């Protein structure tokens, strides 16, 4: 008999070798797209997180390679356009991307090479899930993972408008949306994400959100002691916090890191569309349809016989002109 996999607390450990039952089940879903009355899970998984410490990143792209390897995607071979990003953007086959930016720090007069691993942030309040019209195409598990369920996805691209970080990409092959899964299939069997496992400098670490926040605080303290007085954690509260979060040496200016949003939140336009427009629209259309049926049943506008006669007289008179 197989045993249920433990909830992973690190990506560093070697995986168990015996077969394990998944420990990330459909019953662990706390929110599903277009599913207003989802029954709540009976258990709460430990909240997990991936921490990306950009100050430790050397831009080697091992995380990208591990991601492609694990997810068995085949990003197209691109062309060198003189920049380090490869491919040039996230694609349906590339769920994570090292983004490189050069910044002339006015305080020190030094050129800084800021490298950020881009990908899904696994928001506590996911805009993609809110925007999605297809029931169960986007789910959020109680451990914080936001995952796309491809057989329910219809490829409309609403998740793209919902996301404050410009992450989801729609495949031209199967017309469904792709992004980082936080290796939900690895987490389900007690392992950490492939990128964290592959990172040679421990710039990417994985564990419980609590442990990761504690570790991030240590890192921030260390960076401050080294002169990065604006070092800090990027765990944006506008989206309820995220389950992929950063340590930045310039946390006061997140946008330095290849346009990481300073204050990400679900666009009020998306909220208005999915909120008041939907509710009021359904109500107005319902009332109008019901009103039309009722008035149609109880009254009518009918031609009187004398009007037929009047018309006949008119036509006859004209023809006799």
């Amino acid at each position, binding site marked *: 008999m197989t045993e249920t996999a433990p909830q992973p607390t690190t990506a560093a450990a070697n995986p168990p070798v015996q077969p394990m039952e998944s420990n990330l089940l459909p019953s662990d879903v706390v929110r599903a797209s*277009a*599913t*207003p009355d989802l029954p709540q899970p009976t258990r709460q998984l430990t909240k997990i997180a991936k921490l990306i410490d950009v100050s430790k990143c050397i831009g080697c792209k091992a995380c990208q390679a591990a991601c492609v390897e694990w997810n068995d995607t085949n990003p197209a071979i691109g062309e060198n356009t003189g920049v380090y990003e490869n491919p040039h953007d996230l694609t349906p086959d590339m769920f994570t991307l090292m983004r490189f930016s050069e910044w002339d720090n006015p305080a020190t007069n030094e050129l800084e090479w800021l490298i950020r691993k881009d990908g899904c942030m696994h928001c506590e309040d996911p805009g993609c899930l809110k925007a999605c*019209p*297809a*029931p169960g195409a986007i789910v959020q598990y109680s451990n914080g993972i936001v995952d796309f369920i491809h057989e*329910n996805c*219809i*490829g*409309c*691209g*609403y998740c*793209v*408008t919902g996301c404050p970080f*410009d992450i989801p990409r*729609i495949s031209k092959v199967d*017309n469904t949306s792709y992004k980082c899964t936080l290796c939900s299939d690895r987490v389900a069997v007690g392992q950490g994400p492939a990128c964290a496992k592959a990172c040679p400098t421990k710039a990417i670490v994985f564990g419980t959100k609590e442990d990761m926040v504690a570790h991030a605080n240590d890192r921030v303290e260390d960076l401050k002691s080294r002169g990065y007085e604006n070092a800090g954690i990027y765990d944006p509260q506008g989206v309820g916090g995220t389950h992929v979060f950063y340590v930045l040496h310039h946390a006061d200016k997140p946008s330095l890191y290849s346009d990481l949003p300073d204050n990400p939140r679900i*666009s009020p*336009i*998306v909220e*208005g*569309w999915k909120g008041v*427009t*939907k509710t009021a*629209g*359904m109500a*107005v*259309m319902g009332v*109008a*349809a019901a009103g*039309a049926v009722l*008035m*149609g049943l109880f*009254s*009518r*506008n*009918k*031609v*009187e*016989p004398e*009007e*037929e*006669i*009047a*018309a*006949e007289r*008119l*036509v*006859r008179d*004209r*023809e*006799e*002109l």
Partner: protein
Amino acid sequence: MRRPLYSERGDHIESADPVRVSRYRGLTRLNHWVTAISLIVLALSGLAFFSPYLYFLTWLFGGGQIARWLHPFVGVLLFFSFLLLFVQMWRLNLPKPEDTTWVANIGDVVTGHEERLPELGKYNAGQKFIFWAMTILIVVLIVSGIMMWEQYFAEFVPIPVRRVATLIHSLSAVAIILVFILHVFAAFWVRGTLRAMTQGDVTGGWAWRHHRKWLREVAGREGRDAAE
């Protein structure tokens, strides 16, 4: 020949006893029904994406993926189909002074006292409202719809613009469904109207009651032609 003021050139008296007046020729009726079916398909598939409670409507089309694929193509079909209708109908839908009186006395319309209102041409102010509302909303819907057409146009429209387009598309979709409900309701409520779009003609009494100026012009024209 002078362009008629209240009728199309093709409108004519089909028979004098009983009076039947031709209102829409076959091509126009076909054009109307292609537009109508497109609008219904668009409303059903669009509503499925509008509310989770209506997502089951995608079943009519064989699933969400197919509904998502089909919706924009039918939108393009509706746009061109309506464009043909527009070309045929816009002139007689221009506002006239009697429209103001008609709107001011809308109560008499609702209670069925059209004899208290001025005589009207081929369209009353309500029909004109539906025509222009449809026109404006279809233009807004096709433009915003193309902006959110993920499959072919995603790369040309920045995401913040797409958000606005999506909101506008859903608002105008609600509006056009309301206009559609009014249009269908009026066609049923005013008895004798439907046959104009099915058989193509109306009774003399219907024309006398609702569009007397139109009837007078059509009848008068035939009288003159007969005399010539």
